[in-house]
Structures are given as structure tokens and as C-alpha cells.
């Protein structure tokens, strides 16, 4: 279970999160929607541990562990995974090398042995196939020259491989064509598990037809201003954020 309590965050003297509280239960898929600049990506970075942000108040607990006291890599080993809104390119590091380094680093941090190369290759190949990622892409430098959609699918592949406990998907649907959207959603759905939770950030109700959320939260001005079931997404699609902007201000 992830619990965020009264989170206040600023960057370069600019307040972005203003007392945000949110709980995501085991096995739950929670969707977050909200206008541009409301702080959705900031929230995802703060959960994952990006250093640029100053946490003024509040706490983030994953199964009772205080994430804010942990380094980003320790959070990853504890099961936090962020699929980036804008995945980064790493010239000179083959995707396969990167995947192996990440998986083995997490296993080591958890006191598990390294995966043998054949075991690892088998896992990656199977995951790539499911996401329609061609094998030769795995030999190329990570994300370098990948299309927007390919980068997003690569994030899902990493997620599948690392088997995190808590997955954050920051606008994974943006940049995906209709077929790729279904493939990515299938990839996510295959990972749904009573012990795994998801925080799905999106602007479009359409994604939620494929990844059906248990809860939907509306974020505005750095806070969750309304929570409901999946019907809330349909309501937002019809009416926009006008009501919530005024409410939060």
C-alpha cells in the first residue's frame, strides 16, 4: 500500500505540490487526471526520488517504509518503478546491457543472486515479443533513435522485467498510435496482480478503456481535489476541468 500524506513540494522557490494526500491499495489501479502543470509529473518524480525537488512537509510510505528517506536506487529495489513521460536516451549503452545492469543491481540490493545470462535473455525476449519490440532494438543504444512510441513500449518492457511493487505510468499513452496503445495496455494488464499497484497518469479517458482503473483522482494546483470511480474519467472527458480549477484556487 502506498500512502501519501499532506505532501508539500517546491522547486527553485516555486511551490508545486500543496498538501497532496493519496492512498493506493494493494492490487489497485489508480488513475490521476488533471490539467497541464497541475503537478502530476512532479508527484511521480518525488515518489521516485529525483533530487531537484525540496519536500517541505508530508510523507510517502510504501508498505510503511518512508520512501523520502531512501535513495532513488533503494526505492527502485523496494519496488518503485516510474515509466517516464519523456524517457531518456543513453548513447553508448546497449539496451540489453542496461536492462541486465538494472535487474542485477536490484536483485543485489535485495540480497538475491544474479540471473544467469540465458535466463535473463529468455525473460527479455519473451517480454519484448509480447510488446512487439523487435529483437534488434535490444542491441541498439537505449532509446537512441527510438520513435516516441518505441520509447514508451521500452518503458513497459523495463517494468515487466523488473516486476515492481508500485508502478507509476506518466502519460505512457501519449505518443502511442491506436495499435501501440492496445499493446502497451495489454502489457500493463498482464502485470496486474493483487500485490501490485499502479498509478496511471493520463490526459485521455481512452487509455482507461484498456487499463480499467479502480479509482480516478483529479489533481489541480498540486492537490487531489476529487476522487471517484472510473465514471469520474467519463465525466471529466465531457466537462473538462473548469469546476476543479476554481475549486482549487
Amino acid at each position: 500500500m502506498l500512502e501519501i500524506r499532506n505532501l508539500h513540494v517546491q522547486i527553485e522557490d516555486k511551490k508545486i505540490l500543496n498538501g497532496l494526500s493519496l492512498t493506493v491499495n494493494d492490487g489497485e489501479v489508480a488513475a490521476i487526471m488533471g490539467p497541464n502543470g497541475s503537478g502530476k509529473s512532479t508527484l511521480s518524480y518525488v515518489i521516485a526520488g529525483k533530487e531537484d525537488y525540496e519536500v517541505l512537509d508530508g510523507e510517502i510510505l510504501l508498505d510503511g517504509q518512508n520512501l523520502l528517506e531512501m535513495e532513488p536506487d533503494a526505492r527502485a529495489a523496494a519496488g518503485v518503478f516510474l515509466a517516464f513521460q519523456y524517457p531518456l536516451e543513453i548513447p553508448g549503452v546497449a539496451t540489453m546491457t542496461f536492462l541486465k545492469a538494472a535487474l542485477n543491481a536490484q536483485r543485489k540490493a535485495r540480497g538475491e543472486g544474479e540471473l544467469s545470462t540465458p535466463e535473463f535473455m529468455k525473460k527479455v525476449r519473451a517480454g519484448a515479443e509480447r510488446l512487439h519490440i523487435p529483437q534488434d532494438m535490444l542491441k541498439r543504444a537505449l532509446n537512441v533513435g527510438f520513435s516516441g512510441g518505441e520509447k514508451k513500449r521500452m518503458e513497459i518492457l523495463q517494468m515487466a522485467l523488473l516486476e515492481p511493487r508500485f508502478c507509476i505510468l506518466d502519460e505512457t499513452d501519449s505518443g502511442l498510435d491506436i495499435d501501440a496503445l492496445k499493446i502497451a495496455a495489454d502489457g500493463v494488464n498482464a502485470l496486474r496482480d493483487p500485490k501490485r499497484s499502479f498509478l496511471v497518469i493520463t490526459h485521455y479517458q481512452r487509455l482507461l478503456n484498456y487499463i480499467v482503473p479502480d479509482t480516478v483522482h483529479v489533481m489541480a494546483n498540486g492537490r487531489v481535489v476529487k476522487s471517484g470511480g472510473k465514471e469520474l474519467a467519463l465525466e471529466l472527458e465531457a466537462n473538462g476541468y473548469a469546476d476543479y480549477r476554481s475549486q482549487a484556487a
Partner: protein
Amino acid sequence: MAQVTPMRTAAETQLLDLFPAVKARLPGAAEPRQQAYDAFAKAGLPHRRVEAWKYTDLRASLREAAPLADAPSAAVLGEVRTKAAPFAGLGPALAIVDGMFEPSLSDLHGMPAGVQAVGLAGALGTGHALAAQVGQAAQADDAVLALNAALMTDGVILRVAAGTQLERPLVVRFVRTGSQARAAFTRVLLVVEEGASLTLAETHEGPAGVGHQDNTVVEVITGDKATVQHVRLNADGGGAVDLSTLGVKLGADCAFTSFALVTAPALTRHQIFVTFAGENSRVSLNGGALLKGRQHADTTLVVNHAVPHCESRELYKHVLDGEATGVFQGKIIVEPHAQKTDGQMMSQAVLLGDNATMNNKPELEIFADDVVCAHGATCGQLDDDLLFYLRARGLPKPDAEALMLQAFVGEALEKVEDESIRDVLEGVVEAWLRARL
């Protein structure tokens, strides 16, 4: 204007006294050595007001010129025999120990067909036909090169016959021994005849923490249509002062690639002089330096496009930790009639230490109008956003940094075509990065 005679430093005086003391036993013609000595005597040790030595003030940093190394004893040679060489087993090797070519440690009988190998001292002494080419490729108005020309004691001459295609690299080991700082002046000449193809891999090996002083010159002279890969590994001898010159003179339709890796010595200066003597040749000069503490590594190169239709590429990578200093000076000269020259030079540095320094000085001297030439230099820290991305995937900070640095240096290292050599070099880089963890 009044003539100012600069004060001689202790090291200069020692070097000036050295030549008269040993010249009687140096092999070969006396006259060229005397001329080189006179040139050195006039110039003195290079200092920061000598443009090509702007960032490496040898006059200031070389306190003492070490005495000439003694020829190694049988016991010393026995010890060298037991030490594993970095490129051991990858190809036939020739060893130069403390300034002397050592046939007993060299695979003279294992030389492949088409390769002739002779000791330099012997060749100079007997007036061997190949000895006439010594000094043809390394020509520059440079005091360190002049010192080598005056004082070289020994080395190797290699001739690769026309059309010979070598599968395995030829290895030349420069080995230093002993716990007292000593100087060695050595030279290697590689003559590559028309259409031949090979990899020449040098290693510089020595005890860590001893302030040995090396002045080595490697000359490469090729006929037309030759392909030469050159590799230089300097990963040993933590206390050493290593001055080296690579002189290359290429015929037409040739390809020459060089990669130099520096991790260990306290002070290195690697200077490269390339002259295109024939058209349609390509040169690719590359290097990586991983430095920490107060190490200093200088690469200074001059590529002279004396003829049209040639291509030159330079890619140098510095990783500077602690208070280390990196220097890259690259000059591409395009002579008036050298049309269709294509030159691109890039130097990149990552500063890991707050007190690390990188000095970049790329220069283009273009006297022809129909050319494509460019240079660039970058210097900075590792990208924080990339670091976060890697850490968010579970890599601890030092591991994430190591992966990024490996990729950074890897871009230059991948120019080494021989896989077996490249593997060893990658291992050296990895070991350096692991030592930081």
C-alpha cells in the same frame, strides 16, 4: 635587444651533461645526434611560453632528469619474464626493457611471414638499409623529440612486406624495471610496404610509484594502399613521466587509425605528427584518458594535409577526477593545394572532481578553399537527468556513473578494430571505474 640567456634548471643541466658523457657508446652516426643535441641545448626544456607546450610546463614540472637506465641484468630479465603482459598471447611480441631491445624476451622466431624485425641499435650500428628511414616520419621543431634523436639507445625496426595481411597484432612492449628513477630513450620504426595491413599494439609497463622517465618515439612510414591500426596502452607505472611522439607518414590510399589509452602515469605527453604524402588516405586518431589525483595527461597533435583528397578524424575523451589535468591540443593544417580535405576534430571531457581541469585548444589552419573542416570541444559534468534515470532503475549512483563513463570512453575505444586488443582495453577502463566504486 639584449640577448637573454635563460637560467638552466637542474634538469636541463643534467640532460645537457648526459649527452657528452654517453655519446661515445650510442649507436649509429654521431653527426645527426650532435645536431639534435645542439637543438635541444638551444631550446632547453619546453615551458608554457612555447605555444605547443602551453599547458604542460615541462621545465617547471621536471625537477630532476633521471640518469640513464642500466642495461637490464639477467636477474631483471628473469623477473620480467614472469610478469604477465597486458596483451600476452594476442600476437607475436617484441620487448624493449629499460631502453634495450631484448631478443631473449621477444618472439623473433615467431614473426609471421612477411615481417622483418631487427634491433634498432644493431641496425644503426651496422648501417642497415632500413636505418636510413629512422627520423623520416617524426620531424618537428620540438625539444623532446630532439632529446630522443640525440639520446635514443635502442628499439626495434619492423618491416612489413608488400601485400602482407596480418591477422594477429604485432605487440611491442616497453618495459621498465627497478625502484630507482631512471631515464630511457627508445624508438620504434614501422615500415609498411604497399598493400600491407596490420595492427601494431604498444604497451608501456613499469612499477607503480617509481618516477621513471620515458622518452619514446614511434614512427610509421607506409607505402600506398596500406592499412595500419595502432594502439598504445599506458596503464602501468604510477609515478612515471612519459613523453612520447608518434610520427606518421602515409602514402596514397592508406588508412591509419590510432587509439591511445592513459590511466596510470603521473605525467604524460603524447604528441602525434601525421603527414599525408599521398592522396585519398584516411586517418583516425583517438584516445581516452582516465585520470585522478594530480595526474596530468597531454595529447598534442598536428595533422598536415599536404595533398588533396584526404580525410582526418580525431576523437579524444578525458575523464578527470580529483585534481587531475587533461590537455588536448589539435591542429589541422590544410596546405594551399590540398583541396577536398575533410577534417573533423572533437575533444570531450567529463570533470568528476571539483578541482579537475581540462584545457582544450583545437586549431584549424586552412590555406585551401574547397575543404570541409570542423572542430568541437565539450567539457562538463555527467548529466543529472540521465543519472536519475539510471538510478530510478535501481543502479546505485557509483554504478550509474560508471556505466555512463564507460559509454563515454567507449565511443572512442570502439575505433579499435582488433577485438582481442579492444577487450583488454575495455578491461583496463572497467578496472579504473571499479576502483572508484
